């Protein structure tokens, strides 16, 4: 069974204080790993897709990296508007299933 564990559950940062969010996964062959941002009362907003170990993607203050066991979402010099819940999801290669498995998310609060 595919499993996704995100840590920490909650993170409070001061504006400008860089940090990383972790997504550990167990899957029988990785088709893709996805990062989403979710604001209160809204649906998840797509950030990145990573397909293979060693891959990295960046967008503004966010950088996502991938290994064979985990992914990190690095936030550099965060701003209050980066406050949100960050969700990680994995899609397995085997079995023909296209159903992603989501983690419970990391709730990030950035204080001014």
């Amino acid at each position, binding site marked *: 069974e595919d499993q996704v564990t995100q840590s920490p559950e909650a993170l409070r940062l001061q504006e400008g204080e860089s940090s990383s969010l972790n997504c550990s996964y167990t899957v029988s062959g990785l088709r*893709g790993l996805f990062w989403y941002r979710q604001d209160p009362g809204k*649906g*998840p*907003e*797509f950030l990145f897709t990573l397909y293979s170990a060693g891959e990295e993607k960046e967008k503004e203050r966010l950088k996502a990296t991938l290994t064979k066991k985990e992914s990190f979402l690095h936030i550099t010099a965060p701003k209050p508007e980066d406050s949100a819940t960050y969700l990680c999801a994995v899609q397995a290669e085997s079995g023909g299933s296209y*159903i992603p498995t989501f983690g419970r*998310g990391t709730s990030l609060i950035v204080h001014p």
Partner: protein
Amino acid sequence: GAGVSQSPRYKVAKRGQDVALRCDPISGHVSLFWYQQALGQGPEFLTYFQNEAQLDKSGLPSDRFFAERPEGSVSTLKIQRTQQEDSAVYLCASSLDSSRETQYFGPGTRLLVL
């Protein structure tokens, strides 16, 4: 429209009532997914369509839940005889196709069963 839309955004139902939740996917997107998200949790898969075909409904929690996409575009999730445990946010997502494609989510329908 540019994104996935869902209606209604909020629904309050009395226990035992039937509800219908609508999803309009991004135009041209072949795949459509329904998820249930409880407070503080990640989205949990309910069912998946490729065009009008429902290819996986393994996540539907009971036979009170039913989904359809008759013309391969708009989809409706129906919950019969609602129970309090059905209270959650119901999210719809669409993707261009299902293989390695990013899913784009709608804003969700927040269902409260009293």
